[in-house]
């Protein structure tokens, strides 16, 4: 089957699924979150997958998006759609500035620097009480249903908004991958020095990818805030809930591929929910433990992610058939 037919079938199925679900129920909520985190993994994938710059600080941009649009909404009644653009612009500037000190860093050092950056923002959000509400967090003023204010009583509209975000960001990812920026990113990923000597301005390429990825991540922060109506610094600037999750979703599914983060999110988010439901009554931390064990198992079996596991399996079956 051609890839675009597969894509169209999946998209139609994704559009039909919610009509069978209780629009305010638990299942659609989990699916909506999975779509949101698939989009987050995809935004991360632009930097982490295409350029192999493993960021553990994407919460910085997610949080900037959530706080910017919500502060503008609370104080000036500004539509989150506009606040989303403002948040994306601020995140883009932040990523641009951050790229200078982290430019020469690779591997773990880059990861740690990005992580530290998001932690600084988390601490600021927790202490600048007059603007950010401090450690208590911010509540989005509730006035549903309004498309302009991006608020709905039912989960269904959020489902379609997150689906739209995932489609748009996946589109951006595919477009970049096949553009000259994509070629240059892949060259950079494979060998920075060889890329330089064929004329790739690796500095400029890294900055472009980081800025695009950060702006997209910020828009998801806004959507998250509008979906949950309430967030505190840990929820949007947190290392585990956002930064690590974005990275794991992409890596687990298959970093650098467009379907990787989607597979990753639809595996991880429901798995986390299930582990919470089944295990949280039996002891604190047990669900996280089970979750961690699953992650380690998958990474040990196939470090390139589940997508590679599937494609390897398929090609092995084909070979067996043909022989």
């Amino acid at each position, binding site marked *: 089957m051609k890839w675009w037919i597969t894509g169209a079938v999946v998209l139609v199925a994704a559009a039909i699924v919610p009509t069978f679900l209780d629009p305010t129920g638990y299942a659609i909520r989990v699916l909506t979150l999975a779509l949101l985190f698939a989009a987050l993994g995809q935004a991360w994938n632009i930097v982490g997958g295409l350029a192999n710059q493993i960021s553990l600080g994407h919460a910085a941009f997610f949080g900037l998006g959530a706080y910017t649009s919500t502060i503008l909404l609370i104080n000036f009644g500004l539509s989150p759609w506009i606040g989303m653009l403002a948040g994306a612009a601020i995140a883009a500037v932040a990523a641009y500035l951050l790229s200078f000190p982290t430019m020469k860093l690779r591997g773990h050092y880059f990861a740690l620097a990005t992580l530290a950056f998001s932690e600084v923002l988390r601490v600021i959000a927790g202490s600048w009480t007059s603007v950010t509400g401090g450690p208590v967090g911010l509540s989005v003023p509730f006035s549903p249903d309004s498309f302009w204010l991006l608020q709905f009583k039912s989960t269904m509209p959020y489902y379609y908004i997150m689906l739209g975000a995932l489609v748009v960001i996946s589109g951006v990812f595919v477009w970049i991958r096949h553009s000259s920026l994509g070629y240059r990113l892949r060259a950079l990923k*494979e*060998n920075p020095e060889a890329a330089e000597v064929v*004329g*790739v301005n690796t500095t400029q390429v890294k900055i472009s990818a980081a800025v695009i990825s950060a702006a997209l991540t910020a828009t998801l922060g806004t959507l998250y805030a509008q979906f949950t109506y309430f967030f505190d610094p840990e929820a949007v600037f947190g290392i585990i809930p956002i930064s690590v999750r974005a990275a794991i979703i992409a890596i687990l599914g298959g970093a650098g591929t467009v379907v990787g983060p989607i597979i990753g999110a639809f595996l991880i988010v429901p798995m986390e929910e299930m582990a919470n439901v089944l295990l949280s009554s039996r002891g604190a931390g047990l669900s996280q433990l089970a979750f961690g064990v699953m992650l380690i198992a998958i990474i040990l079996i196939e470090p390139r992610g589940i997508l590679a596991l599937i494609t390897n399996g398929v090609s092995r079956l084909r070979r067996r058939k043909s022989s």
Partner: protein
Amino acid sequence: MSDTTPTLLSVEDVYAGYDGSDVLHGVSLDVHAGEFVCVIGANTAGKSTLLRTISRLVPKSRGRITFDGTDLMSLKAHEIPKLGIAHVPEGRHVFPDMTVEENLLLGAYTLRQDPVYKERLEKAFTLFPRLKERRRQWAGTLSGGEQQMVVLGRAMMLNLRLLILDEPSHGLAPIVVDEVHDALVKIHEAGTSILLVEQNTSLALSVASRGYVLESGEIVLAESAKALHDDPKVREAYLGL
């Protein structure tokens, strides 16, 4: 010959190294237009550092390097190819997860819409017909010799004036070394100047017209390839004769 043609690349009194300690101690050499020059020397003599300094990959360097009148010391590594200088680093470095054609494209991605692009691609394919056969194949799945051709082909996608080669024969089977040898001769005959660094001294001296001997970061001999080949010290130290 070298006195009648203009100097293309001029390296004057260059010091370079990593983290405080110099590897090159006042190296001077030049390549005239259309010349094929080689630098021979032992493993740690600083041959790669010399080439990396010319293509601006060694940040800690001083001295004068000019290419056709342009001061290279004020440029960044990624600006060097625009002048028509292609550096083929040691170890070949194809981009393994790209197809052969994508690898070549990367040598000229600014020209993708330009008719010149097709022209140069055809030229590279004429020189290396095997690349044309394998244009859609992942570069990482090619043999060592074929990867070397991809890298040379990628260099030809530039408006190539000077080809800088670091150990192109390294790790290749003898029969493949012969192919690389032929390819270099063809590229040179097509009008490209070449600066070659090789551990395989007999190969280097058989293709180049002039050579330098680099020892511990200093040029100790500069002669025609024939004179070097007949030099008793070179014969003993580098040719094993």
